[in-house]
């Protein structure tokens, strides 16, 4: 229940946000009919939830508020500045009440009393002085709310008897004891069935009010050949010897919701003799139920008959109308550990399959042989199996996004700014682990956006922007990856200041030629912080470098784009699953390595003419009028000493998060393939230049290259990879 309570308050936050957005629209005169409707529903939902948790004061206030909104949407009231102001006060108090309820606090009675009175008065005036304020306010008081109003009139008490018990009638031959009996005649109109009612269930409810006998008159039922609406052609006579406290109105209540859909008489008799004995219920069961199965589709199991559950299901099954044989979209709850184990096993299976395939290739077996075909099939199946297993872990990002809406509100409040969160693509599904691990980075990013991205209200107004800032979270699937972007409509990155700070920190040299994008992405560099942006909210630069490493740990890329005066967009691109990735298998110094395909742009066999030597031993590749640094992978990873030339090398053009590129020199390219990622950090800690490992088809281990670390960046050089002493040591394990 406490989970639900938490969820309710979270939802309240969202509902209040809808309300607040609506209020803004009203004030800015950008509202339409749906604005008021949405506001009404928000307050209404708060009231509904408050009812479930017995939050009386919240219920009462929400009710008064809702009434005013109801009057507005039915045009009994017009929107004017007074009403808008009242609703803003109402909103504030409603928020206070929600907060108080959340913290289990009680607000002083005087709080909000004036607003409440004014809301009530407004409704009263709108309704010609009569209003429903007091009545309705009472209506939602806890007492009334606890009672379950049940217009279908089914008696809620009593043990659940099987339908056979109730309808295998007669249950009793009423004795001539002078007791009161009710004789009910009932004949359903076809419309009754059309509204989902079943007379058997009505009778059963009636049966729970006393001793009941049921008789059916089937004289109007047409012969089998011309049978239609058979149940509707049956008249029923029910005789009830009521339990204490059951009167006619209680009986009528049972039939209340079928009123107008049947002919019904209820009469009271005092039995001096045997009451008008209904003929013993002549087993309408089999006849009514059996007949329609082969004829009219509609009556089927709805025949008021005492079918056992099995019989009824058979009747359903034999009936063309209900597709009970279709698979149902049902759910079960499964321990996540079991799913993970399954995913691991399937990963191993994929590896075994690849090993098998590879061994096959080395055997003198024709590609058309049965064995080859079977193995081909195995490959397809294991691929589908893997996809299916991954789908189990997928869940919509909605939950994650909704958590963020709160972060936006809280950070806005702390920063003294007004902002709203817009969410797009919440239904996009992402691996559960990924959504969980995105919470912190996203929280950081949002705080940053609110704190540093959005301008102060007065600056926004001066820039001709709406006072309220907009933060947008968007998720989408794009070419096999999940892309999550966070944008704000703030001032954009102050590139002059960022560059200045980066130079002060020695992150870049004054003479470095940096593109705008390079400067923007300096924000992700470790140790970067623009000191005068320190605030309570985001602290020292909020470690966007930490954000980036978190994203990279998820196999993701992060990129920042900013437009001065317009805002900033940070884009995170993530693999759909953490377990498998597409990679290019390469060879360097006798070692097999994998380069993630996501980073790969092009593969080249360069001519000597394209390679240029620089004075400090660095070499560059001229491609399309630009010069890319060449990184000798074997050297960078410490596998060997620098090569004299790249004549026999293949070059892989890779692009990193920042959009910067480099050319990786490798000995050979083997093939592109899916690899199952095996983390290394658990055993070997983080290894520079290496992201993870995988097991190849031949059972050997291949390291997966961390391409981002293979791209020299300004002030970063080739980040210490050439020495490779650490790596050499690690390599011996493999």
């Amino acid at each position, binding site marked *: 229940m406490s989970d639900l309570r938490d969820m309710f308050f979270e*939802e309240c936050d969202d509902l209040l946000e809808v309300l607040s957005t609506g209020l803004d629209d009203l004030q800015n005169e950008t509202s339409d009919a749906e604005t008021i409707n949405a506001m009404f529903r928000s307050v209404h939902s708060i009231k509904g939830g408050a009812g479930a948790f017995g939050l009386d004061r919240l219920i009462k206030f929400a009710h008064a508020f809702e009434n005013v909104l109801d009057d507005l949407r039915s045009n009994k009231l017009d929107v004017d500045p007074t009403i808008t102001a009242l609703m803003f006060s109402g909103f504030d108090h409603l928020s206070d009440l929600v907060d108080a309820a959340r913290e289990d606090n009680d607000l002083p009675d005087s709080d909000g009393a004036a607003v409440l009175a004014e809301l009530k008065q407004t409704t009263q005036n709108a309704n010609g002085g009569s209003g429903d304020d007091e009545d309705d306010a009472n*209506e939602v008081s806890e007492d009334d709310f606890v009672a379950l109003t049940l217009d279908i009139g089914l008696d809620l008490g009593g043990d659940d008897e099987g339908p056979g018990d109730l309808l295998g009638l007669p249950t009793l031959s009423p004795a001539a004891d002078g007791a009161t009996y009710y004789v009910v005649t009932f004949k359903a109109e076809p419309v009754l069935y059309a509204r989902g009612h079943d007379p058997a269930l009505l009778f059963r409810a009636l049966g729970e009010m006393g001793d009941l006998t049921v008789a059916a008159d089937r004289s109007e039922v047409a012969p089998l050949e011309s049978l239609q609406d058979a149940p509707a052609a049956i008249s029923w006579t029910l005789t009830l010897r009521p339990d204490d406290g059951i009167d006619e109105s209680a009986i009528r209540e049972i039939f209340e919701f079928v009123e107008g859909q049947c002919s019904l008489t209820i009469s009271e008799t005092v039995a001096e003799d045997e009451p008008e004995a209904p003929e013993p219920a002549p087993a309408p069961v089999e006849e009514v139920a059996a007949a329609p199965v082969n004829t009219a589709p509609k009556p089927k199991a709805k025949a008021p008959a005492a079918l056992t559950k099995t019989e009824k299901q058979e009747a359903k099954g034999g009936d063309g109308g209900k597709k009970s044989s279709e698979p149902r979209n049902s759910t079960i709850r499964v321990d996540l550990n079991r799913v993970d184990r399954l995913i691991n096993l399937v990963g191993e299976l994929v590896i075994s399959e690849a090993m098998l395939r590879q061994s096959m290739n080395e055997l003198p077996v024709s590609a058309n042989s049965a064995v080859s075909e079977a193995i081909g099939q195995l490959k397809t199946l294991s691929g589908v199996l893997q996809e299916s297993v991954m789908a189990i872990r997928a869940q919509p990002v909605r939950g994650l996004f909704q958590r963020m809406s709160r972060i936006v509100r809280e950070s806005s409040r702390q920063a003294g700014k007004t902002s709203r969160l817009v969410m797009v693509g919440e239904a996009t599904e992402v691996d559960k682990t990924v959504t969980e691990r995105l919470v912190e980075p996203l929280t950081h990013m949002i705080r940053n956006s609110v704190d540093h991205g959005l301008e102060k209200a007065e600056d926004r107004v001066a820039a001709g922007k709406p006072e309220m800032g907009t933060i947008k979270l968007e998720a989408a699937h794009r070419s096999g990856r999940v892309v999550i972007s966070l944008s704000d409509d703030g001032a954009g990155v102050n590139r002059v200041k960022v560059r200045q700070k980066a130079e002060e920190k020695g992150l870049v040299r004054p003479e470095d030629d940096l593109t705008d994008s390079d400067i923007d992405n300096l924000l992700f560099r470790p140790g970067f912080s623009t000191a005068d942006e320190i605030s309570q909210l985001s602290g020292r630069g909020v470690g966007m470098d930490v954000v980036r490493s978190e994203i990279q740990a998820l196999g993701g890329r992060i990129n920042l784009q900013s437009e001065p005066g317009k805002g900033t967009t940070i884009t995170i691109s993530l693999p759909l699953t953490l377990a498998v990735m597409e990679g290019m298998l390469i060879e360097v110094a006798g070692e097999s390595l994998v380069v993630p395909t996501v980073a790969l742009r092009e593969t080249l066999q360069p001519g000597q003419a394209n390679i240029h030597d620089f004075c400090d031993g660095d070499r560059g590749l001229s491609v399309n009028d630009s010069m890319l640094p060449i990184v000798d992978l074997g050297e960078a990873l410490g596998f060997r000493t620098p090569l004299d030339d790249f004549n026999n090398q293949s070059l892989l053009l890779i692009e990193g998060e920042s959009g910067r590129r480099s050319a990786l020199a490798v000995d050979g390219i083997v093939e592109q393939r899916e690899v199952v990622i095996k983390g290394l950090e658990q055993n070997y800690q983080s290894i520079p230049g290496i992201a993870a490992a995988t097991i190849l088809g031949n059972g050997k281990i291949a390291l997966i290259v961390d391409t981002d670390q293979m791209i020299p960046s300004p002030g970063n050089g080739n980040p210490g990879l050439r020495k490779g002493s650490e790596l050499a040591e690690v390599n011996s394990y493999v």
Partner: protein
Amino acid sequence: MTTKILAVDDSRTMRAMIQTALTDAGFDVDLAEDGVDGLDKLSGSDPDLVITDINMPRLDGFGMIEGVRARPECASLPILVLTTESGEELKQRARTAGATGWIVKPFDAEKLVAIINRLVV
């Protein structure tokens, strides 16, 4: 076969409460956020009973009920209205639209389950 219920409510708290109550009682529960979503999910879900709220965005409960009834295969599907509203006029509208029953929120889980058992068994 487990009884399948499609619950339509725009409040996620309410959806969660309904889901908890009904799942604990052994029902299969599919959820939808409003009338449009509810009608979208109707075919795939193939429920034995529908529970719907009244005040919802895009398509309200009345529209949802009419939409359900407009499908021949759902002509006699039980539909329960679960709402905070209790006005007679609204009830009549629901009845005309084809609702089977009307329950006023907040609901008592056991009672809701009892009612459903009587409509679907």
